[in-house]
Structure formats: structure tokens, C-alpha cells
């Protein structure tokens, strides 16, 4: 299964890279009047996964140049879109899915796969605005296994790298997690862990003392826990019912940080990245040049002291030194005293 997942991950990564607007300007502007559509194919090899609900949420609007402008709602969850790293896009989709479920955001469109396992958007709506979309699917059961569609982000229209033109009819295969359905067996409880990772080297002082993580059960908040250095920034939930979908979100994202979630095995990894909060409108402060004062002989300030390794030695060297000096003084005193006696 792991092999299959790796294969599917590679396919999705390739798809994401191909569909992202890498060569926006080479492909020319996006035609605003031309409608875009998205076709999802949801099959396990040649077995179609039918009647599965999918939602798409618009994350960013696309300008005719291909530039993406984050929606106001989504800018509460992320401050910027990643570069062309496929893993980052995958993590962003996973992160956003938790928030859209928790906050019950209204999807841009919804639909279900047909008997061929195919679904085309727009489904309920007449048209889709050009932009970046988050695609999420619900859980389905087939042949003793459950399938959880993996969320992903897709650009509409997408760039066709072979022809170097905008593709307005995008088709993609949906990746999924396939696991045996243990809900009817004796083992009907599962464990989920969350682990917080900080990517803020040099800015640890700005890190909050604790953060709150919410465990979602089928999109509803089930539990909230505080993570801190005291619990090594992690928590384990045991005895969770296996036939529910469990996800996590960071309750509120600390200022100066972006959050990214991922899941491997039973563990959710929540990573907070430090983001420089720079006001681009404000010009950088310029230091006025130091004026030389004629006749001023004041020495310049000493350079900052060089960092040093800690002093990890016990003070033993004074012991023989003090002993030797003491003995010398005593001998000297005795000689003087003896000289006095003799005189």
C-alpha cells in the first residue's frame, strides 16, 4: 500500500507542478470570458468510486496575468501561498481542509461522482471564477476498505506545459488513503497524535508559551488541548472511534507565524513557520552618516566581544600556586627570625 501511496503522491506532485502557473507570462493572459471546468476521476485502479461527495473552495482569485490574490477568508489562515514545492502545496491543502471544515465555509461548488467515478465542476453552479481551488472529498466504504480522498489545490485554468497555453478543461485523478475498515471488528478504537514543530530559528523569543489544538470529528470540534514545552509540544488521543474522520487544526495561529499540517501514520505534524512581518510601504530607516569632528581624539567604541564557549573548568590551579607562595613566605619569615636571633 505504501508503494501505491508513494506512486500516487508522485503523480499528484507532478500534476501540481504542471498545473501551477509556472510559465504564466509565456502562456499569455488568461481569457476572462472563457469558462474553466474541472473534471475529477475517482477510481481505485479500474474500480470507480461512485457517489462520493466533493466540494471545491476558492482560495485565491486569478488575475488575467495569472497572479493569484488570496481570498479575504483564507488570508485568516495563511499569509502567503507557497512557491513551487509540491510538498508545501500538499501540506497547505491538508491545512486548509481542516479550517474549511471547522469554520463550515461555503463551498464554491459541490457535487458527487457518477457511476464512472467522474465528477465535473461546475456541477451545481453555472460557472466557476478563475482562481486557485481547494478540492475536498468525503469518506466512502468499498469492499471492506474505506477511502479518504486527499485534499489538493488546483488552478483553474491550468497551464498546459506541453503546448504552453492555458488549459480551461482540467482533468485530474484524485489521490486517496485506503485503509481496511476496522470499525466492525473487535479493534474499533484508534489513536491519534499531534506533534508541534517550530521553524523559527533565531526568533524563539517570539514563540508563544503554548498553543491550542482542536481535534475535529467529522468536521466538528471534539476536543481542544494546549501544547507547550511542558508536554513536549505533543498530545495523544486514545480510544477514538474508528468509523469517524479525525482531523486537527491549530485553534488560532500566533502572529508572525504561518501554520502547516500534515499526517503520517497516526501522527499529525503541525509546523509553525516564522514569517517576517515587514511593512513594505514603510521605507527602510537610513542611518545618517557619522560626521567626523575635527580634533576629536575619543577612541571608537570597542567591537562587540567575541562569543565564547562556557567556562567548564574548576579552579584547581590556584591551589598549588597559593600553597607554594604561602610556603615561600613562611620560609622567608623563619629565615628573618633566625637572623634576628643570631644578631
Amino acid at each position, binding site marked *: 500500500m505504501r508503494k501505491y501511496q508513494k506512486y500516487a503522491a508522485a503523480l499528484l506532485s507532478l500534476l501540481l507542478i504542471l498545473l501551477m502557473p509556472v510559465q504564466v507570462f509565456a502562456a499569455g493572459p488568461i481569457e476572462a470570458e472563457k469558462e474553466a471546468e474541472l473534471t475529477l476521476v475517482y477510481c481505485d485502479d479500474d474500480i470507480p468510486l461512485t457517489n462520493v461527495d466533493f466540494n471545491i473552495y476558492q482560495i485565491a482569485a486569478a488575475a488575467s496575468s495569472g497572479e493569484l490574490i488570496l481570498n479575504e477568508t483564507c488570508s485568516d489562515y495563511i499569509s502567503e501561498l507557497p512557491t513551487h514545492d509540491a510538498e508545501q502545496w500538499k501540506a497547505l491543502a491538508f491545512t486548509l481542509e481542516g479550517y474549511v471544515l471547522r469554520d463550515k465555509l461555503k463551498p464554491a461548488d459541490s457535487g458527487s461522482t457518477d457511476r464512472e467515478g467522474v465528477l465535473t465542476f461546475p456541477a451545481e453552479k453555472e460557472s466557476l471564477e478563475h482562481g486557485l481551488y481547494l478540492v475536498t472529498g468525503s469518506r466512502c466504504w468499498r469492499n471492506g476498505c474505506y477511502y479518504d480522498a486527499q485534499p489538493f489545490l488546483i488552478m483553474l485554468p491550468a497551464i498546459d506545459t506541453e503546448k504552453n497555453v492555458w488549459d480551461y478543461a482540467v482533468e485530474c485523478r484524485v489521490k486517496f488513503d485506503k485503509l481496511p475498515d476496522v470499525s466492525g471488528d473487535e479493534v474499533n478504537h484508534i489513536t491519534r497524535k499531534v*506533534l508541534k514543530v517550530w521553524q523559527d530559528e533565531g526568533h524563539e523569543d517570539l514563540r508563544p508559551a503554548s498553543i491550542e489544538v482542536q481535534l475535529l470529528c467529522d468536521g466538528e470540534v471534539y476536543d481542544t488541548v494546549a501544547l507547550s514545552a511542558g508536554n*513536549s509540544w505533543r498530545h495523544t488521543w486514545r480510544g477514538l472511534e474508528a468509523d469517524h474522520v479525525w482531523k486537527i487544526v491549530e485553534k488560532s495561529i500566533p502572529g508572525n507565524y504561518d501554520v502547516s499540517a500534515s499526517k503520517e*501514520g497516526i*501522527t499529525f505534524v503541525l509546523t509553525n513557520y516564522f514569517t517576517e512581518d515587514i511593512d513594505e510601504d514603510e521605507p527602510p530607516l537610513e542611518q545618517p552618516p557619522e560626521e567626523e569632528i575635527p580634533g576629536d581624539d575619543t577612541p571608537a567604541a570597542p567591537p562587540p566581544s567575541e562569543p565564547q564557549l*562556557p567556562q567548564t*573548568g574548576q579552579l584547581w590551579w590556584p591551589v598549588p600556586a597559593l*600553597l607554594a607562595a604561602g610556603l615561600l613566605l*613562611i620560609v622567608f619569615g623563619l629565615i628573618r627570625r633566625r637572623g634576628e636571633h643570631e644578631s
Partner: protein
Amino acid sequence: MRVKRGSVPIILGLLLIAAALCVAVYNVWENRSAARHSEEAVSVLTGQIPEEPSALPLEDEAASGGEVEIPDHILAPDMEMPVLPMDGMDYIGILELPALDLTLPVISEWSYPALKLAPCRFSGSAYQDDMVIAAHNYRTHFSRLSELPEGSRVTFTDTDGNHFDFEVALKETLPPTAVEEMTSGEWDLTLFTCTYDGRYRFTVRCERLTGE
């Protein structure tokens, strides 16, 4: 009253000898205190650290129905090292130097008061193979570091019970200003302490033993 000739240097000499004795007694007391504290901390930590990590090995995935617990440090090597608090200090694990018959606790962050109790992490992480541990040159801490033969085994056990085995690869002496060289991350584990005169840092570089 007439002071006897030669009395002043004799008194001064006696005072200096007394001062030397005071320094020696203080050092011995500090040494013993550090030894006692380290011994107690190791005893408590050994009771709290699981003998084996709780996470399932990856090959058990099929048997567990896909519910695999990947060890945290493998999943996210950049995670904070977990700690066990004790007497106001956070400990990240136990360091073993069998060649010197030493088993020592390791405190998460270094400070001078912490160094008086136990070896401390100076920088890095065992999960990223760049950990640097500093300790005083107490007899029961790192004073015999220079006696560690090259190729001898060093083991670090974190508070989750994960074992990290190393081999002594190089011994060197660095100046106290060599912070960058000490923490360059070129070595999987580094141990250091002051030389006898306190002017340099005696340093042991270790390589991680893999596939065990």
C-alpha cells in the same frame, strides 16, 4: 609592643595556605555535590524513561491495519527534544560512556547553575545529528574525557527511550572562542569540557553508528 622579625611573612604565608585549603575543600565539595546530583537524576530518569520506545516499528504497518505510529523524531527530526522536568531543570536524556564507567543525565539548556548539577546540551539535537554537550571537568563528569579511547562507544538515550549509539572518532583541543567550529554540525555528537588550566576546551567528536 614589638613585633618579632619575620612574623608578617609567616602570617601571610599561613593565610595563603589556608586560602589554598579553602579552594581545595570547596572544589571537592562541589565535585561530590555534582556527583550526588547526577546519580540521583540518573536514577529518577531511568525509572521514567521507557526501556523501549512506544512507537511501532514501520514493518508492523500491515498487522496494525494501517494504524502506524512512526517515531516522532523520525517523522519530524526538527522537533523540540522532549524533556522530563526534575527539581526545576528539564532533562533530555541520559549519556553513557562505558569506557569511563560514566552514566550522566543531560540537561536541556546550558547555564552556569545547570552545569554545576549535570552535563548540559550546548546546542543542536540528537535527532538532527548535531548535538553538542558541555560539562564541567568534575571527576564525575567530563574530567576524564581525554581518557576516552578512539573507537569507544558513547550512547545517548532520549526521554522517549530512543537509543542513539556513537563512536569516538576524534579528540581535539579548541580555543574558547571556537563557538562556530564547536557547533558546525559536522559531527553527529560532540562532548567538551575545559582543560585543567581552563584556557582551552578539550573536545571529543563522535560519529553515529547506524544500522543497529
